[in-house]
């Protein structure tokens, strides 16, 4: 279960808020990009071939509502999964940073 503390400001936890604003932004965007990749992987990794084809088709239509509906239906506990992945990431990154600083 992700630590509640980490649900708080991860930037503060990692002391990134002490960096100059442009560095903060750099790190924040790097982190966000990584999280987006992780949650994408987590959400899509178990799709069957048929689901993948259907998903590609819906994506090409560009209808966000349809995409969201498809994911809600085809990914069990879709939103919780995302939440979990984000929380896990925050914990892992904090642990890794602490380990690298130790």
């Amino acid at each position: 279960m992700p630590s509640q503390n980490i649900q708080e400001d991860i930037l503060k936890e990692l002391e990134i808020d002490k960096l100059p604003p442009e560095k903060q932004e750099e790190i924040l965007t790097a982190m966000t990009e990584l999280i987006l990749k992780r949650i994408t992987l987590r959400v899509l990794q178990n799709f069957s071939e048929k689901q993948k084809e259907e998903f590609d088709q819906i994506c090409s239509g560009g209808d966000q509502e349809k995409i969201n509906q498809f994911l809600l239906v085809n990914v069990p506990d879709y939103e919780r999964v995302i939440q979990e992945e984000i929380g896990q990431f925050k914990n892992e990154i904090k642990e890794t940073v602490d380990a690298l600083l130790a």
Partner: protein
Amino acid sequence: MKKPTLEEIAAMREALKARQTKEQEVAGQTEVEQTAEEAELARRDAAKGAEPVVERPTAPETPPAIPVTEEEPHPYGERVYSPEEEEEIYGPKKEQKIEVPEEPHPYGERPYTKEEEEEIYRVKAEKEKTEKDLLLEKLDSAREACADNLYQKDKLARGVERLSGWRRFFMSAEKRATRTAAEEDFKKAEESYKKSQESFKGTLKDYRVYLLKEKEAELNNLVAKRELKKEDADKQLEQYAKEKVIETTTKEAIKLFDAKENLRIQEMGVARKWLAEKTSGIAEWYRKQPTKVKIAVSIGLGIGGVAGGLAGGVPGAFILSAAFAGRTGMRVLGGMATTAGVERGMKIIQERGAEKEIGKEKEFADKFSEALKGKNDKLDDKLFEMLGRKGGQKRNRYIVAGVAGGLVGSGALAYAFQEAMHHIPESIREPILQKIGSAKEWLFGKAGVEAPVKPKVPLGQAPEMPSGKGAVPVPESPLAPEAPEISGVVTVQKGDSVWKLLEKQLESRGQFDELGGNAEEIKAAKTYMIDALKDKVVVDPKAFGLTNPDLIKPGQKIDFSRLFDDQQKLDEIFNRAQNLSESEVKNILRPKPVEIKMNAPMAEPRPEVAPEPERVAKPEIEAEIQVAQSLTESPEAPEVPEEPRTAAIPEPEVRTVARGKGYVVNLPPAPEEVSKHFVSGEEYEHLLREKEGIDKLLDESGLFNKDALEAISGQVDAAIAQTINMGISDYNLMKGINLENFIAATNQPTLFVEQGFNQAQWEPIKRTIDEYLGREKITEIKPDDLKGTVGDFFKKIIKIDVGK
């Protein structure tokens, strides 16, 4: 060739000495005596069998002396030796401390194969690497190894877990053995990971030390130059060290996880290509967003700052689906961006700590939460209970920043924000809005603070907060509350064109705000969008109240509503604009060479008019033109020139310019009608120089007097400016522009705007050029005609009344 005898060698030494002395005399140098140290070195080298290599900074380069004891006669007589003879006598030349010779070709003088070339360049590149390059390489390797071990460890851990727990009670002996083996494998993997982590840490530390030394050297340099005090340098170094520790560690941790994710994808088997595409697609989508959207996504995912305590579940799903749809910016995030902006703004206010600001913020926040709760009877009490635990200011920040589906989707948040703002006195409202900055625009549109807007979806339908019990319905309407309506019906003003009007429409509707990418990509995307919409107008002008989209008149009404009512089409155009390829961007931005053709009957010869000493003021001329054109029977009389289509497609378009009567009434007569009083700018310049006397323009050094020449040139420019009824300062601004670029920019007037030129500055130039082309019956301009600047061209074409 036979080996020289001892006598011969002694003779050679004598000859050599004599030659050395002669060379030194010529060079005016005296022989540098060997120092004791050099002598010792020479002795040691001689003992090793090598020729002594001694630096003699002033002695000329000579072959080294042969360490012989007896002098030998010169084997070839007293003459200059060839290089081969010298080598024969003295042996192969030893390495001297001169410039490093180029390395010999490793494969001989012949064409290389591709592999050989790669090897040569690889070796060369290796040698040219700096210490920093090597450290970074080492860091990359250490990180990759660590990521690999981490991945393996995690994978084995999962395997062990699958074989653990209650299952072990039902395992066969074989399975138990498998489990034991798995546990052992996991322990080994854990050890490997720890080792690689230590190595990674060590390398990272070395890199940080390097950075610190670099910074220290930089600061010491400043101290040495007395540009910085020592104590300030020490403080800066300490601060730098702290920042670098945080920065490098966090960045490396992120890269480590990124590498691990890539390994994970690689091991997905047949699915890996598809998954790799999807994940990199998401990353690409994110990278293209404007900065404010990136920050909003970060906050929405619960990374950058407090985000309603919901850590990204609902908003994360929302962001992900939007990313897959390729949608960007505000249209995706809607309230997310709003709350992010507001939250940041609030944070800034809070962190400032000024008492009166806290007071303002508190008042605002209190009103805000009051308005929010009051308006949302059916809002989940759980939210407020949860938020209530946070206490005080933080609670209000949670509310203000509440990235909760219901709040966002229903628009209740923005509604409450506006409500709260209206309860705050004007005197403190503005500072709050200023601090929140762009969030204000997102909430209220560019018109500023408006009356409260009703939420799009009744608040009672706000979805429940995620409780983990089931899927949470997506907000029905994720967009920000309606901004003030922008009318699609426009009235044409002087100087307008369909292009410009569409540009204004897109701008007013905030369509350009959401474009991401670098400056060139944004520019190209804007051009693409305007062009795409203009295409629709051209295809069916009647639908917009037009007969000819290239000919619009001041006062005319055009209805663009149907373009902006079709949100789906608009989204498609937007998405396409946002995803232009590099070559498409370049193609769109490349100025097109202009081929100007006539599409109307030639203008009738201008009637002879006596040159007027005083020019008519511009507004009167414009009125004259308008009257003249309203009376003209020619349907092709232009009010405003066409804004040609900028290529979103590769083929360049031919620009056509219609001609009419009386377009510019004050241009002096055609060349054939020139009286002796009229001369071209070039001729005028020549006349002035003659008048001043060429001699007078020469200064003492025999060169032309620059000031005098500039004064003459200025006089000519002033005369040209007056002739075409332009202010001299405006003309001076425009005259230096490259002619070809100017004409290309007339196809894309936004370029003028970007360069800071207003219409009053460039339009007279354009009109003059058009008139000249019409008068001269020039149907085609070749690229060679476009050399030089606008000023150079005008000196040729404009006729100036020089008086009698």
